[in-house]
């Protein structure tokens, strides 16, 4: 079979610029073959090479006392003590999910799970951060339905519980939904595995499902914006088989308990190409693969297609020479293919053969380490000042604050998401102490008295209005959510969803957001252990809100510290930690009630934030806190309301008085940062005040829990609503919106 001759058209179709192509020729010292061009094309795609983001990502703090593995491996690793490690990472599957929501989301789940067990960890939890356009649009309902069904269908069947996450809505996600999936695994610290090809002459194994033509150029597709022809890209979306993946998890974990394994990596984006050359790159070796030996499920596949296929549920592993039988025996038990397709070599080359014929011979260093890196122009957009302008005097006060509260509770971003997470098995493995719906998920860590908390956060509207401040808040809020659950924040993984990086204003948003996140990560001592960048989230030239999603991992010193937002009984005192300022910029209230996406996001003082979090944690550890809830979307009023209704079988009212002066809407619905709502027994109030004083954190006594009404009064307003009405608005909203049409 002869390969096509390389023409200008073919180069352009591979998304390589002229300069990049010239670099390819320089690396090879000759013109590339067609297979080589395909390999360069996917490895140098934005998705695989991080060529536009690298210079900025390098500014993020990545080390800390608990970090065992930072960015650069398949996932980050954090020390949990007692010889255990948390392996975690978040990844996006936005582009495939827009084209084919069920399979796009399903394979997103499958892909991130493989990143975790490839390190030797048993995957024990998934969380998703999802963004959709408004549900009034039938296409958005279709996308959300498909994505949720895909996560449910794959995650449940593969046997990894989906324990939490978040779902938010905004117009900008209509043409470009976001599907970010985080996976957490637990591994013994001394049995971690890495994606490294070592030991010259060692066999390279292909294990798992067979290779088909699905997903060819998926990584390239994820590196382009969308237009009206995007539907035609459906064949680049892969199809998932959770059953196969479940077998793959068990087989790989079993193999890892032997001494046969040297290195292992999943075949994700760019399939066999990426896994083989990255493993060789990390190992400082070469690798040789014969595509003729690769198990296939379609006939007539070319070497090019085999190398670029993104068929799911496949892994590449390097075994110890002489241990071939061990590998084959274990995979046979699970009825999975395990075939030696090549060898680790000493020559530093990635050599692809088709039988005797050499189809590609590329220096690994040139392909991976010497991949292009761009410092793309970044320019603050002219419209930034305009969107930040907000004159509160021009914003009319609401006539009836109670009505505003009900509308906010019913706003899909704030409303109860039970209808979504009840579709997910969130209890498997018997670890879920606090499940979906709270500020963070709390899992027990079996074999210890400790626990793990996980939260995902990222308010795209804040980042749109001020990327740097928005980036800081994403980190701070994720940390706060972990703290209100009783855990100390330890490290983050992040997924940075942005538009087209070749546009200077997008690059500015990116650089600024990373700058803000870096600053917050340093202030809160939560280094970045890895993650993923998703650019080109644009359709027809319309970019999404810049949306960095932070996945925060925290550790509970004792599982009994686990704390939830709901009131625990009548007669408890309700207290606010932190300070309320007269801020409304970027709030859900401005958007829902006034139709405005305007102003500056709430100010954030990272020093105060840290003190509030330390105060909260100390109070929880002292056993003073009956309930804790972060004040975020919808402000103090929504936080109070949610505390009344968050536990379906225990509704408890509240009576509070807010004595501050100023606009009632800002007081009630402003989204000022660094605020946490507590309830506690009156007898413990003195001890809390002492702790707060020590941390120089202002606290305000707001009122008392009890009864069946939500009564909130201030100088110029009264809200008096039955708790049942709050519950109806909050719990009833999403099912109704999803049923329409």
């Amino acid at each position, binding site marked *: 079979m002869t390969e096509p001759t390389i023409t200008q058209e073919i180069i352009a179709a591979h998304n390589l610029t002229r300069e990049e192509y010239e670099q390819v020729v320089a690396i090879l010292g000759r013109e590339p073959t067609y297979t080589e061009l395909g390999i360069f094309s996917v490895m140098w795609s934005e998705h695989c090479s991080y060529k536009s983001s690298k210079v900025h990502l390098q500014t993020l703090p990545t080390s800390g006392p608990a970090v065992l593995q930072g960015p650069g491996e398949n996932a980050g690793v954090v020390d949990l003590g007692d010889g255990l490690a948390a392996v975690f990472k978040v990844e996006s599957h936005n582009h495939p999910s827009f084209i084919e929501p069920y399979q796009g989301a399903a394979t997103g789940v499958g892909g991130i799970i493989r990143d975790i067990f490839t390190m030797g960890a048993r995957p024990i939890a998934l969380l998703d951060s999802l963004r959709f356009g408004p549900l009034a649009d039938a296409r958005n309902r279709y996308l959300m339905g498909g994505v949720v069904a895909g996560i449910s269908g794959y995650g449940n069947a593969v046997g990894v519980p989906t324990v939490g996450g978040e779902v938010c809505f905004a117009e900008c996600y209509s043409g470009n939904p976001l599907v970010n999936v985080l996976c957490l695994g637990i591994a013994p610290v001394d049995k971690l595995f890495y994606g490294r090809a070592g030991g010259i002459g060692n066999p390279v194994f292909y294990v798992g499902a067979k290779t088909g033509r699905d997903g060819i150029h998926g990584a390239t597709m994820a590196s382009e914006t969308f237009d009206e022809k995007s539907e035609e890209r459906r064949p680049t979306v892969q199809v998932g088989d959770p059953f196969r993946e479940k077998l793959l998890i068990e087989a790989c974990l079993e193999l890892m308990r032997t001494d046969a394994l040297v290195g292992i990596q999943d075949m994700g984006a760019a399939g066999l190409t990426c896994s083989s050359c990255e493993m060789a790159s990390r190992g400082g070796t070469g690798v040789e693969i014969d595509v003729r030996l690769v198990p296939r499920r379609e006939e007539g596949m070319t070497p090019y297609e085999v190398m670029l296929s993104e068929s799911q549920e496949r892994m590449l592993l390097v075994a110890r020479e002489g241990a071939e039988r061990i590998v084959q025996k274990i995979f046979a038990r699970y009825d999975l293919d395990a075939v030696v397709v090549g060898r680790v070599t000493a020559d530093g080359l990635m050599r692809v053969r088709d039988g005797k014929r050499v189809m590609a011979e590329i220096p690994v260093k040139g392909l991976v380490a010497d991949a292009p890196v761009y410092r793309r122009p970044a320019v603050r957009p002219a419209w930034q000042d305009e969107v930040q302008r907000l004159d509160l005097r021009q914003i009319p006060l609401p006539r009836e604050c109670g009505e505003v509260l009900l509308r906010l509770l019913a706003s899909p971003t704030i409303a109860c998401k039970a209808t979504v997470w009840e579709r997910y*098995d969130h209890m*498997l493995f018997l670890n879920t102490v606090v499940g979906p719906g709270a500020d963070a998920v709390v899992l027990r860590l079996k074999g210890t008295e400790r626990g793990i908390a996980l939260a995902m956060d990222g308010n795209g509207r804040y980042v749109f209005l001020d990327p740097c401040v928005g980036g800081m808040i994403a980190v701070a809020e994720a940390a706060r959510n972990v703290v209100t659950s009783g855990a100390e924040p330890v490290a983050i993984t992040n997924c940075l969803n942005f538009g087209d990086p070749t546009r200077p204003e997008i690059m500015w948003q990116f650089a600024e957001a990373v700058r803000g996140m870096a600053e917050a990560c340093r202030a809160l001592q939560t280094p970045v252990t890895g993650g993923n960048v998703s650019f080109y989230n644009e359709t027809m030239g319309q970019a999404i809100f810049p949306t960095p999603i932070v996945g925060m991992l925290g550790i509970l010193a004792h599982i009994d510290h686990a704390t939830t937002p709901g009131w625990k009984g009548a007669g408890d005192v309700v207290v606010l930690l932190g300070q309320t300022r007269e801020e409304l910029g970027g709030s859900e209230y401005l958007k829902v009630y006034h139709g405005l996406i305007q102003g500056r996001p709430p100010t954030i003082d990272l020093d105060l934030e840290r003190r509030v979090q330390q105060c909260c944690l100390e109070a929880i550890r002292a056993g003073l806190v009956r309930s804790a809830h972060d004040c975020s979307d919808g402000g103090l009023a929504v936080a109070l309301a949610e505390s009344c209704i968050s536990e379906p079988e225990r509704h408890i009212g509240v009576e509070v008085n807010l004595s501050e002066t100023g606009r009632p809407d800002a007081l009630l619905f402003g989204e000022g940062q660094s605020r946490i709502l507590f309830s506690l027994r009156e007898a413990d109030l003195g001890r809390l005040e002492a702790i707060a004083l020590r941390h120089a954190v202002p606290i305000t006594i707001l009122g008392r829990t009890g009864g069946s009404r939500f009564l909130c009064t201030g100088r110029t307003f009264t809200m008096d609503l039955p708790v049942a009405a709050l519950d109806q608005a909050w719990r009833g909203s999403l099912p109704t919106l999803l049923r329409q049409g």
Partner: protein
Amino acid sequence: MRFGIIVFPGSNCELDCQWVVERVLGQQADLIWHKEKELKDYDCLILPGGFAHGDYLRTGAIARFSPVMKAVERHAEDGGLILGICNGFQVLCEAGLLPGALLRNTSLAFICRHVHVRVENTATPFTTACRPGQVLRVPINHNEGRYYVDPATLRQLNEKGQVILRYATTGGEITDGANPNGSLDNIAGVCNEGRNVLGLMPHPERAAETLLGSTSGLLLFESIVRSGRAASPMSR
């Protein structure tokens, strides 16, 4: 007491069942791969939840042909105890060890949440630790949990006390509102005529520790252990 937990490819609740049997109850539980053809002398076999063989084709339809199932059937014939949870219940129905079938939920969606079930018969090895009519709070986690059986068999199930659990309100009332999946007569669990094989859709192993929000599922496991103690060691 010795428990054996059957592991099909795609099962996923086997470790949870093992955890509860060993860590919470202090009994022994072995994992048994589905390709085994002979079983040791187990007092109780558990067919755990999950997606045996991917649940492709139809839930439990392929699993019933797994090599281990012949030995499971012999265990049932010999009067040994078998507990089928969720997917395990589906497998037992497909294998003909229990009457009826589990159809797709009326909502056409997977449901994972706590429900309440009422204990209908305490005179079985699985329910002796329960009070008659006791309401248990246990989670369900399934897409195909709508119990169905033909009218004649249903009559027989009721007459012979083979309906063990029904979905109920917290107060123990059997209502449509308390029925999460459209099961016939709110049936959540049934046993065979010999009362040594129980299948149920809720997951009792997920309601066996205070830390996880409910301990009422533990009553089923405790009943099994109690029945094992009641039987004289010589009889086995």
